């Protein structure tokens, strides 16, 4: 059964050209899906429409047990979001707070209003946060303020925050675009580990075609808001890369 089903998704920011045009695909539980496409092709828009940080103009998004994401309001929407992690290119951590506090933010969606406001977490939640931080090799940085971390470490905190949500899927919007190649590889390896060992679905926007091919089982290619490629990573050949990237493809063609 599909974990995520996107049907006829369309997004107009303004009347001229749609950022997404009639996009349909579905993702099964446990898949590693990479979304590629030239700059401005709608990758970020797609990811943010899925968890409703951006409101889609038209279409249906079915996620897990939440039903149609686009129909949810208030509490229901927040509940649906708790089961759907997200990590960002710029990490989006509260830099003045500690690593541990940032990770525990992943639990907020599950908390009552007061416990959430005052940051009161249960013993299990704290244990879970410590466990996840250890998994990501951050056990020595727990009490460090986030602005004292390197980019790669910050992104690992981002992953930890998503993991304590107990999500079935994690959305990643170019998580390695601000990192050096070494840290980028570490992050990608952790995401693969999360997918393989915890069975969490990874849905990731990438700029790097080679990285997408190396890690993803399946690739979605976008061009000007249209889904122009949807298939296993092995089927992404030079011809398909040309279709996705148009004239920019020459720099990306691999021999």
């Amino acid at each position: 059964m599909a974990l995520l089903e996107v049907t006829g998704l369309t997004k107009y920011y303004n009347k001229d050209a749609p950022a997404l045009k009639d996009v349909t695909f579905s993702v099964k539980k446990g898949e590693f899906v990479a979304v590629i496409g030239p700059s401005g092709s709608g990758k970020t828009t797609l990811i943010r429409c899925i968890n409703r940080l951006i409101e889609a103009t038209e279409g249906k998004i079915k996620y897990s047990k939440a039903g149609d994401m686009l129909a949810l309001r208030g509490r229901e929407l927040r509940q649906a979001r708790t089961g759907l992690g997200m990590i960002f290119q710029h990490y989006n951590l509260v830099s003045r707070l500690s690593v541990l506090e940032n990770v525990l933010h992943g639990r907020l969606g599950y908390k009552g209003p007061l416990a959430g406001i005052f940051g009161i977490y249960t013993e299990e939640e704290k244990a879970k946060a410590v466990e996840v931080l250890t998994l990501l090799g951050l056990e020595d940085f727990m009490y460090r303020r986030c602005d004292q971390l390197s980019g790669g470490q910050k992104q690992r905190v981002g992953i930890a925050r998503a993991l304590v949500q107990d999500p079935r899927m994690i959305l990643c919007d170019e998580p390695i675009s601000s990192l050096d190649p070494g840290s980028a590889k570490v992050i990608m390896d952790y995401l693969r580990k999360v997918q393989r060992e915890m069975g969490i679905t990874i849905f990731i926007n990438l700029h790097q075609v080679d990285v997408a091919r190396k890690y993803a089982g399946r690739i979605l290619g976008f061009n000007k808001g249209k889904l122009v490629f949807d298939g296993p990573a092995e089927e992404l050949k030079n011809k398909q890369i040309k279709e996705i990237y148009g004239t920019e493809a020459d720099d990306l063609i691999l021999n």
Partner: protein
Amino acid sequence: MTSSSTNARAANLFLRRNKLYLSLFIGGMILLTAVTSRMTDFNFRDGIGAVPKVIVWSLHNFVPDAKALERLPKMLDKMADTVFMSIMSSVTAALFAFLFALTGSVTTRPNGFFAVLARGIALINRNIPVVAWAMIFLLTFGQSSFTGFLALFFTSFGLLTRFFMETIDEASVSTVEALRAVGASFPQIVARAVIPTTLPQLVSWILYMIEVNIRSATLVGLLTGSGIGFIFDLYYKSLQYKSASLLVILIMVVVLSIEVISNTLRRKIL
């Protein structure tokens, strides 16, 4: 013609136009100064020429004497009133301003209509000068320190709302987004993302507001018959310039110390 040469020409035109705007702006400023000084009969040469004379005259009349020093305890007493009033009006205004800023800022506004409303109210409040507020409340509450408090409160509230909105939009966009994605509710987002990311700047703005308010409190006191402004008015009108000047020195010392204190605090928290 190739498109790259058209583009180059367009870029050139763009840069030249920007330069033209800058020259026009500077020229305009000079012209404006000339015209306004003409209109107000202000003459730069005479103005600057009068400076030495002013210095001599003030040295003669404004150096505090023993009698002025005798009045110091009373001045300090009134000064304390003024400082407290400034702090109180700034802090109360900050509380309201924070709520309005949350409602009005692009990052956190829960609803478009209330956002416009909050921005509108703040805009009106800060565009009425503090003196006008004082006049308005004078009619209702008469000469009292409460009138002064209200006048300071309303301008501070309007200004702080705007500063806070800018701070929120600048500092907390990314963390608000992250917590929304996690499924956090609005109050949780405010408590766990907005406040931690913006607090140092918010405090810094409040400190700035206290400084500004101590300065305006003097002026407002003149009108509302309270605090330091009131006794300044008293000394001045009874031609006791030496006491008035001691008061001015006192005000300067207090304002400077507040500035030093708040700069130190600011450096600590930022």
